[in-house]
């Protein structure tokens, strides 16, 4: 069973997003995504200051099995990448919603978050992909 926390927002491309109190959002990939990919061996993240476009690739994760782009969930600017991940990509498998976060960004407009999926809608998406 996939682990889909209720308090997060999601994209159709399997990123999660968590709003922080300082107006930034934290982004990672979901439990379902890491489970599909298997053991992560390589993570390439956008540098701080990178301008990203919603729905466009801004990073790469590679597992033993496959490579996959990481897509920016909203427009904005990256303010911090998780510097621990490149040396321990397996953290994405072990704790995808915690220590396995990928980057923090400042959305161009907070209203963009409304266009993302909630936990229920994402759960339905995952269920539909399984059949």
């Amino acid at each position, binding site marked *: 069973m996939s682990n889909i926390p209720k308090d997060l927002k999601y994209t159709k491309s399997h990123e999660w997003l968590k709003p922080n109190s300082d107006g930034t959002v934290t982004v990672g990939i979901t439990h379902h995504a890491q489970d599909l990919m298997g*053991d992560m*061996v*390589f993570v390439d993240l956008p540098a701080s200051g990178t301008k990203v476009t919603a729905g466009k690739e801004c990073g790469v994760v*590679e597992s*033993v099995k496959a*490579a996959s782009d990481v897509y920016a969930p909203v427009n904005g600017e990256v303010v911090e990448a998780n510097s621990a991940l*490149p040396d321990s990509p397996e953290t994405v498998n072990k704790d995808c919603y915690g220590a396995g976060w990928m980057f923090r960004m400042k959305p161009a407009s907070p209203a963009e978050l409304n266009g993302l999926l909630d936990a229920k809608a994402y759960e339905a998406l995952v269920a539909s992909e399984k059949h």
Partner: protein
Amino acid sequence: MGNKTPLYDLHVKMGAKVVDFGGWDMPLHYGSQIEEHHKVRKDCGMFDVSHMNVVDVKGERVRDFFRLLLANDVAKLKTKGKAIYSCMLNSKGGVIDDLIVYYMDDQWFRVVMNAATRDKDMAWVNSAAKEFGGIVVTPRNDLAMIAVQGPNAKEKVYQALGEALRTSAGSLKPFHAVTVGELFIATTGYTGEDGFEIILPAKAAPFTWQMLSEAGVPPIGLGARDTLRLEAGMNLYGSDMDETTTPLESGLAWTVALEPADRKFIGREVLDKQKAQGVPRQLVGLVLEGKGVLRNHQKVQCDGVGEGEITSGSFSPTLNQAVALARVPAAVKTGDRCTVDMRGKPATVRVVKYPFVRSGRSCL
């Protein structure tokens, strides 16, 4: 729903992620493929390889039959239980399958072939047997197969299945087998580590698996099996060679017996001709110098000599970097730098001799 081995229920109980492999529902991993890989390199692990196709071939002239059927020469098998690895070729020298053949006695050879190629293998062997005459081919669907591999594998097998095996199986040289009761124990494998492959009655497999588990042998999925064999520089049928490639183009010249020159085997003319004219392509090892993972079918640009393709690319957990087998023009040499197109970006790879890893150690 695919075919299931006698160990399927135990895989599910042990938390396996099950995937389709050549029509079989097989365990990909039981949690972490990389951790399983390290266990086999550092300690030991067991693999359910019951999907492999075990076939007994009998007849008065069974040795001559295999001297015709296989590119390697079973005349090398002089003591009972000895095995060789060989390709089975079509008339164009292309590889129908790779296999291990055991000399059981003068009228009985046992072959272990791949699972995904079962139907075409059986059609080929049956048709050759019919033409040759006096050969009886029996697929042993009543058997299962468990591989126990790793530096501590043999000790764990004695512990789990009986000290008596230490004297019977423990003294076997590599690529030999012995029958002990209902167990057929061979010193073969697909990991580059010490260990056994055990062929046994399907109904005895679950109990044996549990005995091994209780002795502390962890189950290993097909995911780690693939990275282990790649590090060990062992070919995978369908990736590194198939019916469009000859063994000479697939790093398998060592398995082709062109001597004695008067032995006629299927595919021989093409190999003789290729040898005389020069083999145009070769299989080499590649190591990625930067970060990322090499993948099957990525193009390899070799300056001045042309283009090749990765046939098996992955991440080596032991070396902590990406490695690959690739088919490239014959002029490419060890130490050369080539460029791989990695998802639209050029990446530099170094051409190396493989295996990449043997008995837990880097060969680079």
